């Protein structure tokens, strides 16, 4: 069974069972079998896959999601939630577009902040980088006994693949890290470790003539096994080969190639790996990839926060503003949700020129995909220490993104281990942020 037909089949419950059974046979990790069987049964029950949140504001507006991960813990007080008094950082407070205040470290973002919604009341308990990053990436606390999927995999489960030849999920500047969770490996994001390299191995090292002769002979010699064996997983590989032949000749490959961008556009995004990564993300979503994660490192500012904010924050600021402007000018922002997420915030107090980890309150920023433009949701207290109103958990953030992407939230699926799970870990979406 090829992943190619997933989308259409998943929309028709009548076809769903046979599809899922085939799918289970293909991804013959076998532990998925009970899972798919159960889901298939659920799907036959009328309304079982209906989204209870379908009627709420913002549902399904985001056709694509770009998820920017600021690794290390972005200081909310020095970026999107400026404070006065003892908590104040080295940057000054500036009035930005969209009637909100930002710090002077984000001058470019301040020019496009009328396109964004800032959530200033994110709250969590995990103050360790890896575990907190896992929580922000999946919406679930990390456990040694189960791997939770990313939103891209959840979306592929509920909505099918987003394109006939391109992957549905891509990670940029980071590894895939089992982003499929308990879903089949085919749902794992395609990792692009270096955006300027793009997708590797799409060109044959030998001449076209030799390729043609080789593939011609391959078709003849494979007729015995590949052509005759009826096994589903063999058939699946026949289709992967077919899909690869198509992709190699496909125009869609250009989605991975930054060389096709004008010098001006490239310059706007900047030469940094994050800049090029965000440009690649835009190209990918523009061409049909549904979910793209882009990682940006360097936010763990325990010391010399001032300098680091200039450098790391400055890079983010320029690239982020360029991305929002670019998407908006192409008419893509209304249907593309851009998320800025960091694993936690930083303490209101300074210690040795920097701030410590602070998960109790921090900020997350959303733009596009149906969210309000120029809006602040929730608040931290005066010091920036704890949420003052509308606390939002990482699970709820995930439910919110899932809701925007048109996924059923607060709806059980059964994992291969037989455990009921929900996207966003049972939390409700924050529908107040949608226009």
């Amino acid at each position, binding site marked *: 069974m090829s992943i190619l037909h997933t989308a259409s089949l998943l929309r028709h419950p009548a076809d769903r069972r046979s599809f899922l059974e085939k799918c*289970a*046979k*293909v*991804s*013959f*990790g*076998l*532990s998925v*079998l*009970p899972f798919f*069987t159960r889901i*298939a049964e659920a799907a036959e029950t009328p309304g079982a896959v209906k989204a209870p949140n379908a009627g709420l504001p913002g549902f399904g507006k985001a056709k694509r999601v770009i998820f920017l991960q600021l690794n290390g813990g972005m200081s909310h007080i020095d970026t999107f939630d400026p404070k006065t008094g003892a908590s104040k950082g080295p940057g000054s407070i500036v009035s930005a577009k969209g009637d909100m205040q930002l710090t002077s470290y984000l001058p470019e973002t301040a020019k496009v902040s009328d396109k964004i919604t800032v959530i200033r009341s994110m709250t969590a308990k995990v103050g360790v980088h*890896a575990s907190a990053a896992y929580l922000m990436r999946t919406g679930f606390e990390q*456990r*040694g*006994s*189960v*791997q939770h999927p990313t939103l891209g995999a959840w979306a592929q489960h509920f909505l099918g693949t987003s394109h006939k030849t391109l*992957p549905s999920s891509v990670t940029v500047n980071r*590894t895939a*890290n*089992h982003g499929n969770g308990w879903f*089949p*490996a*085919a749902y*794992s994001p395609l990792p692009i470790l270096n955006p300027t390299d793009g*997708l*590797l*191995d*799409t060109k*044959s*090292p*030998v001449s076209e003539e*030799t390729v043609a*002769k*080789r593939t011609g*002979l*391959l078709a*003849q*010699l*494979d007729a*015995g*096994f*590949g052509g005759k*064996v009826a*096994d*589903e*997983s*063999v058939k*699946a*590989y026949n289709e*992967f*080969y077919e*899909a*690869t032949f198509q*992709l*190699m000749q496909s125009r869609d490959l250009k989605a991975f190639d930054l060389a096709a961008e004008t010098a001006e556009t490239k310059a706007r995004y900047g030469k940094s790996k994050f800049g090029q990564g965000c440009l690649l993300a835009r190209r990918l979503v523009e061409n049909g990839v549904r979910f793209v994660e882009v990682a940006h490192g360097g936010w763990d500012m325990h010391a010399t926060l001032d300098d680091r904010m200039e450098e790391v924050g400055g890079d983010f600021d320029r690239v982020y503003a360029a991305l929002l402007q670019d998407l908006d000018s192409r008419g893509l922002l209304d249907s593309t949700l851009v998320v800025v997420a960091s694993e936690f915030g930083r303490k209101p107090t300074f210690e040795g020129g920097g701030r410590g980890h602070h998960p109790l309150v921090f900020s997350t920023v959303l733009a596009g995909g149906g969210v309000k433009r120029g809006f602040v949701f929730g608040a931290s207290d005066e010091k920036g220490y704890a949420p003052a109103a509308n606390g939002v958990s990482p699970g709820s953030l995930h439910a919110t993104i899932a809701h925007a992407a048109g996924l059923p939230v607060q709806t059980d699926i059964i994992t291969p*281990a*037989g*455990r009921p799970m929900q996207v966003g870990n049972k939390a409700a979406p924050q529908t107040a942020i949608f226009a």
Partner: protein
Amino acid sequence: MRPLALIFGLCLGLTALAAPKKEAKKAAMPVIKAVVAPAAPVASLADITPIWHEWTDKEGRKINARFCGLTGDFITLQTRDGRNYHFKIDILTPEDVAFAKSCVELARRTNSFSPAVIASAAADIDRLVGAVLAANKQQPNALATDAQFLRRLYLDAAGRIPTAQEAEAFLGSTAPDKRAKLIDEVVFSSGYSMQMFNWMADLLRVKDTFAKGVPAFTFEDWLKTRLAANAPWDKMVFEMMTADGRLSDNGAAGFMLFDAEMPLDGVSNLMTTFLGTNMACAQCHDHPLADWTQRDFYQMAAFFGATDGKDEAILGAINKIAKADSTLPKGSLKKIADMNAYRLDDANKQKLTFPKDYKYSDAKAGDPVLPELIAWSKADKSLPIYKVSTKQPEQLRDEFARWLTSPQNPRFAANIANRIWKKAFGLGVIEPVNDIDDLAQASSPELMSHLTFVMKAAKFDLREVQRVIYNSKTYQAAASDTPDLGTDKYLFNGPLVRRLSAEQVWDSLVVTALGNYADNVHLRRGEDMKSMALPPGKVTLAEVKNAIDRSRKALGAKGAGGGKSSGGSTIGLATGYDGAKPVNRFSLMLARASELPQPSSESHFLRLWGQGDRLLADSATNDGSVPQVLQMMNGAVAKLVADVRSDAVMQAAKAATPEKQVTSLYLSYLSRKPNSRELGAASQSLQDGLALTDLAWVLANTREFLFVQ
């Protein structure tokens, strides 16, 4: 203790043994209707090792059952219907008590099964499988061809395909027992240990680093050493469960240290790995779909409540040293701190308490938990191994390990037997293999029972058990297509057609590139790591400096070539190879997967093809993807295949005619000779401008290469 009469009544099949815990809940299996008893007594394992026996009790009643074991005063017997019985031996006649003891003696003297025992135990498998197939009006598959058997056996037992020479030697042999001979040859080859390492690494979550980058190389070395010695599974597990100290003191500590930061998850993981019991849900609440309660989980976890994985005092002391002398290299200090702080130690107090949010009435939140073993049926609790002492907290882990690894443990032998069966057939007798709580869910409970028996009779020698399986006609039958398990259980007409594992694909490509050279390339990195160990109790500036110097000397030579790649650390990789070194081609380090970083970095061929991330047990997959195919067609591996230096290509080039060259490449890649149509097409292509390197590329890209039949 059950009354004697009842035991014998049960043994005689007059009534059913107390039903397994979950049997009542799940519907009876539709597939297995009846197992036809063999018409005539079949030569079985028990006929050769004298363990089938008519046992007589002091009241003169008799049953026919096989001897399974003697633990203290308790004897375990198994009747022909596969049921196990445990009872105090003193109800038997003195003659039978002596006989049981002589069985134990005999078993001790035998290291490996004789050919006759192997043949008999394999025949039992065929008989049991055949009976279930017949009862369901199915046939076993026809015998696989020699070529299919050859390729399957090499992949299953050596982890790679045979070379052309190895293939030719077997295919050309006319010896009637050539399959049995090949089995013995391959299971005693060095490829066998490498293959077992790959398989076990996925099960045991073998990773180069745990926690925040703490290297675990001595754990890998320990595992390789134990596999090379063919250490029995129960011994290996016991060593892992009871290991004390740092990784530099005892590599076996690596298994438990992996979860040092999350001990509750560790308990949940080891239950899955060693018992096929999935208690993860019960960590936070009563299991919604099984009978395990949160209390069950906590009571099990309490056996580890006195065990500590991290010595904060050492971390503090090294931090102080770091602050006092800022010239010390931070990176080395962190490594030394981690290497010395992570260790397994048992305190004299069991500290686990019920969690703050405990919501059931059977215990109070915050109360200390009393260790108690789980049982799958009421009868389990009367087994002697359930009598564990919980009085000395520092002994709790050892007590647990004794229970865990005992042949009497109700799931320990079944779990590993089922997993080994899956390794050979592509499917467990019970699926999923990580949840075998309900043995009645087996596609054939009789087969499961027999395999469990063989596992115990082999004293957990996994090589012996695999020899038995490989010698069965069931294993040697032609492969079945992937069955539709949604409607019926698979009854093992033969093994399943399946894609090679990531390690099998990689190791096979390495063999085509280098011949069997890579079977002699061994990576051992633990010794370098030991250089960072501080003398016990001496966390001083001077000792820390010594350790830094030692580790610099050990790692210095490879500082330039080592470095870090995304994913796995390659520290010590360059000089970690003793004897033969890996060959580098097209930026690929050509060593067997077991002799590369564990797991390989995420961008490596192995990971792309489904090598697990090892964060959880059984994390490997064999799912397909487009990037895999891109690599095979265009990537470094494609260049490796279509290279004039490739061993397969060079062997073919030596042949005199195009037909012989084609045949040689077919043997190298597909372990068989081409048929006339293939021979014609391939030879013609060589006339039409394709080179042998192109033909190698074509064969490596066939589906047949990727699959085992």
